[in-house]
């Protein structure tokens, strides 16, 4: 059981653990997102991503989650259940991101296409207040995991 994002292989992550971690806080986290008219991980970002593109895109998304979404998301007052789920997701995203090595000699058009998709997501994120955007991005982890699962070999 491993992730296969095109040429990138990632073992050592039990997708079920991530699912369960998010599932326990889904309603709480998503209820904090009041801007329901905006979806960051829209279809244009994730639909029909080729295998070759997928490694670039997942790496960009996970790095963004690690450096921007998760980084200042927590404070000591955060609900304990959210902190636990957060820790599971952040540490497993950290493992996946550290194992993704997209090849350098891939065609420029492939990485460029992945970059455009990521920019759609990033632009939508930056149009919101940072805290609202972090809350929304955290609440959309189920969309991200569902897309990642398409590249998971059971």
């Amino acid at each position, binding site marked *: 059981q491993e992730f296969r994002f095109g040429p990138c292989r990632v073992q050592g992550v039990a997708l079920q653990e991530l699912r369960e971690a998010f599932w326990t806080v889904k309603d709480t986290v998503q209820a904090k997102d009041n801007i*329901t008219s905006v979806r960051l991980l829209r279809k244009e970002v994730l*639909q029909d991503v080729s295998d070759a593109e997928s490694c670039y895109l997942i790496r960009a998304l996970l790095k963004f989650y690690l450096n921007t979404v998760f980084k200042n998301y927590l404070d000591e007052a955060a609900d304990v259940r959210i902190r636990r789920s957060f820790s599971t997701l952040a540490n497993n995203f950290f493992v996946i991101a550290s194992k993704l090595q997209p090849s350098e000699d891939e065609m420029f058009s492939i990485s460029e296409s992945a970059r455009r998709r990521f920019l759609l997501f990033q632009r939508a994120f930056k149009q919101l207040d940072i805290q609202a955007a972090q809350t929304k991005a955290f609440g959309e982890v189920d969309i991200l995991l569902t897309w990642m699962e398409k590249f998971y070999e059971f």
Partner: protein
Amino acid sequence: CISGGLPKPTNITFLSINMKNILQWSPPEGLQGAEVTYTVQYFIYGQKKWLSKSECRNINRTCCDLSVETSDYEHQYYAKVKAIWETNCSKWAETGRFYPFLETQIGPPRVALTTDEKSISIVLTAPEKWKRSPEESSISMRQIYSNLKYNVSIYNTKSNRMWSQCVTNHTLVLVWLEPDTLYCILVESFVPGPPRLAQPSEKQCVRTLKDQTSALRVKII
């Protein structure tokens, strides 16, 4: 109507099986039995407006079929309902974010059994996705969930033993069974992934045929 004059409906949730998505709720506290009517609206996450469903405006039942409105299972949805009674109405009661692709229950497959002396062949037909009308072509849930598997449980009523097998294809032949024995079969669909409620099939029991060779042996001796 005077908004907030009534308590909100309660327990508002989606009941979803094979992508048939029914919104259901309970009457407001203290108004059971009163002539209350309800109005439903739904919302596609990431879009702009709440939308109405005309068949669920001023209804007195406590459910509304939103399968058509929530049929793009890669989208996420909200729904809300308010109660109306005489000149008063409640505030909206709203669901959480509903994600059909992750939350729909996978119904059991259809199970066809045929037996002979020492074997039972099991033919499974994947559950079908909900469709708008009988004329519409069927879509198997397997087309949506390519990693759909089946857990087949076999119970030998004579030896009182049970064992199971996990299969991905649609046929399974159990051979070298005991003749003239009642076997009960139960099949459950499952998709690796988020925790889903499972619906096992109806238990079906079949008896393997009598062993013709021993019957023949009796005749000859």
